[in-house]
């Protein structure tokens, strides 16, 4: 088979794919958006887009790379649509270090959507510069500079909390 979605598409295919990737989509959306309710909305939108693409028999080789790209675009769009992009820290699974996690979430919320996205792709998804460049459709040089600036901005905001 030339691609994952090649050939006849059935309802079961859509269902299987959404079942397989739903949690992963949600986690990436949460890493970028920082709020569970927003992450749920993004997951829903991504699922709709994926099913539409599957119905259109789009040929995709790397499933997760493709779905990740859709998730990042949806998350960025969702955050840009909102007037304030500042996060309301709300993690679905609290742990003993919740205070620190909330502090990080608040600090991330003060960053731009672009900075937040690149930090999530680098730290959460552990992607290489090339993979980040492919996901965001930007040159590889921009990835390193944007990541560098994102870390500097994060550190500045982090220190402001002192």
């Amino acid at each position, binding site marked *: 088979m030339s691609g994952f979605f090649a050939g006849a598409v059935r309802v079961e295919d859509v269902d299987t794919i959404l079942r397989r990737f739903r949690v992963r989509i949600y986690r990436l959306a949460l890493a970028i958006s920082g709020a569970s309710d927003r992450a749920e909305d993004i997951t829903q939108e991504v699922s709709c887009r994926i099913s539409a693409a599957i119905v259109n028999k789009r040929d995709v080789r790397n499933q997760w790379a493709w779905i990740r790209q859709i998730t990042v675009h949806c998350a960025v769009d969702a955050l840009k649509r909102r007037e304030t992009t500042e996060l309301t820290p709300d993690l679905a*699974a609290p742990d003993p270090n919740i205070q620190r996690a909330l502090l990080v979430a608040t600090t991330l919320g003060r960053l731009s959507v672009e900075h937040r996205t690149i930090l999530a792709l680098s730290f959460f998804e552990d992607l290489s510069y090339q993979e980040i460049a492919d996901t965001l459709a930007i040159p590889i040089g921009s990835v390193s500079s944007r990541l560098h600036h994102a870390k500097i901005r994060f550190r500045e905001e982090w220190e402001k909390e002192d």
Partner: protein
Amino acid sequence: MGERRLKQNVDDALREFYAECGRATPIRKLSWRPFLVMAIGPAAVLLMVLVFSSVAPSPPQASVGQWLLEHQERSTSTAQATTPPDKHSSRSSGEPNRGEPSGGKPGGGKRDDRRNACCDA
């Protein structure tokens, strides 16, 4: 001091935060309404188009203008047929009068011509 130690390592803090995100699971289930709308929407629109096109009087395949013209002609002829017939119209309709032969004679055409001339005058 504890706060300072909390913020000591930015990278570690970020990694911890993202690790937390990696453990999270969605609570809400996917709503199937958008999927249904996407799946049924185009089919419903197509069905409506088909239903309306079958209910509405469709013009013949030639052209709408021609169809209108024919429709108009048909309606005028129907209106003429429903108006009460007068003497002339009953005669001209080809109904044989009392005492008159129903036709077949070669002279019948001549008589009709005379009657028409009388009407024209």
